[in-house]
């Protein structure tokens, strides 16, 4: 019972990843194939989740949509972690004015949630998956920086780090040898939770027409399409919504489950 969340989360994440992988090689139908004669069909043996307003198989679109979800999540989290983690370690080890400057920058960044930053970038550089991923990545740097800083401060207080510093090891060595391995679980938890946030942000951007090109199926884009026909074909809105919710739930549960697993050492920090 205690680890139920972790298992459900891991299962859902595996499912989404599996969908993305499978769709690379196989989908029941071509997810871009427009068939004029079979618009907005309900679920059937031939089309498990029916077809959309253009006659495209919904199940195939959902499968391919998982690809975008995974890619956007990985790239966004990657950007946030690659910049945020070193920043947090720097702030946590240098202390003093460096710490102050880094923390104030993250303060400012809190006024720019992923979606607002993405809209700003889309206005200037045009809407594309790249601006979306960049914006989500940049906007989530502060949370990585803060969690890393908190973890670093805790590690720096431990005896083995004091011993290492006393024996003359400089801070880059301490960072790599002591701090990073000890805060890695913390970053893993943050990555999982941020992944969920990235999925939601990307879905919202797609829904607003600010992320992907028209041709690539994404879950958010499917919901955008579904909204235009929602009065005639309400089921259209159900499948992509469920897919997004399942993916977000999966990564959130996985993150929480990991955090509980690492307890009690890390609870105060996060």
């Amino acid at each position: 019972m205690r680890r139920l969340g972790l298992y459900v989360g891991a299962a859902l994440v595996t499912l989404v990843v599996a969908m993305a992988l499978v769709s690379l090689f196989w989908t029941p139908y071509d997810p871009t194939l427009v068939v004029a004669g079979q618009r907005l069909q309900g679920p059937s043996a031939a089309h498990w989740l029916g077809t959309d307003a253009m006659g495209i198989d919904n199940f195939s679109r959902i499968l391919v949509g998982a690809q975008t979800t995974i890619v956007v999540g990985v790239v966004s989290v990657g950007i946030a972690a690659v910049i945020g983690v070193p920043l947090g370690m720097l702030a946590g080890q240098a202390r003093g004015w460096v710490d102050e400057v880094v923390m104030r920058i993250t303060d400012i960044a809190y006024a720019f949630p992923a979606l607002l930053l993405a809209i700003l970038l889309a206005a200037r550089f045009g809407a594309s998956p790249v601006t979306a991923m960049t914006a989500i990545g940049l906007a989530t740097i502060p949370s990585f920086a803060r969690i890393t800083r908190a973890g670093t401060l805790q590690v720096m207080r431990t005896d083995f780090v004091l011993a290492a510093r006393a024996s003359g090891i400089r801070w880059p060595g301490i960072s790599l040898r002591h701090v990073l391995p000890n805060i890695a679980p913390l970053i893993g938890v943050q990555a999982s939770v941020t992944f969920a946030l990235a999925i939601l942000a990307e879905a919202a951007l797609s829904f607003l027409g600010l992320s992907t090109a028209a041709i690539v199926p994404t879950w958010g884009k499917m919901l955008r399409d579904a909204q235009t026909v929602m009065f005639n074909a309400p089921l259209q809105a159900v499948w992509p919504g469920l897919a997004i919710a399942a993916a977000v739930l999966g990564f959130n549960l996985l993150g929480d489950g990991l955090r509980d697993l690492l307890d009690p050492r890390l609870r105060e920090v996060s």
Partner: protein
Amino acid sequence: MPVLAFLGRRLAIFAISLVGASMLIFAVCSALPGEVAEIILGEGASQAQIEALTAELGLDRPPVVRYLEWVGGMLHGDFGVSYFTGQSVSGLMAPRIAVTLWLVLFALLLSVAVALPVGMLAAMKRRSWQGFAATAVAQLGMAVPAFWAAIVLVLVFAVGLRWLPANGYIPLTTDPVSWAAHLVLPVTSLAIVQSAVLVRYVRSAFIEVLSEDYYRTARAVGWRPFPALLRHGLRNAALSLVTVVGLQLASVLVGAIVIEQVFALPGLGSQLLSAVSQRDLMIVQGVVMFLAASVLLINFLVDLSYAWIDPRLRTEAER
């Protein structure tokens, strides 16, 4: 007084954040002058045309000058003029602020009103099925995109049951009842996700209170569990929850942008999105600055509220 030092420091952080945010927004939208003219003229414009328009718009002046001009204007409530229509950005924003304000305010209030009792229950009953159910529902609520919740709510309550309007907005002064009816679904869809997130914070804040000695003291003098939490837990939990609500505001605000789109509400969000699709950077710049400044202002006010909630900041320790 520690409170003065605290307030001074917070005020400085607020001011620095405002300057930083405005510089960032300006850098993204206006720092490179050539592109603005290019966007307005569209592809295929000649270099001469671009340069002429750039000069006409005054964009050939140094960025520093234009930045200071923009900031100086905003201090007087002037957010510049649209590159396309020449309309005043503040004039465009003014009638829309109320729409977004109502939406955000009610969504925040509703989510707190739901999350507080549910989160307290989840904390108190964390070992029984009620607590588990509350946590599980919160997890599900967090996974639901607000715009999907909006679509589902419209399908059920507007299309299916025909209780409420599916979209649109009526100003409060025109017809208060209709105004309220048009806000119910947008506010609810926005509040679902927010309250789910808040429930988790409320729960962990109150779990902490439950392990505190002063809670045990309250029980020992005869308070029953729930009244003890209300009487002695609320203020203490508020110390950590107030920050969360402040931070949540940013996500409610961006959530409102999407929700306004779903319900065709004439708020700042729909204005921002139409400006983005036209690439009217001056409007984008103005609206984003307004939103970012609101978030920073609220978080500053949240910081101030500490001084009111926490007596340790207000009064000097005498020992």
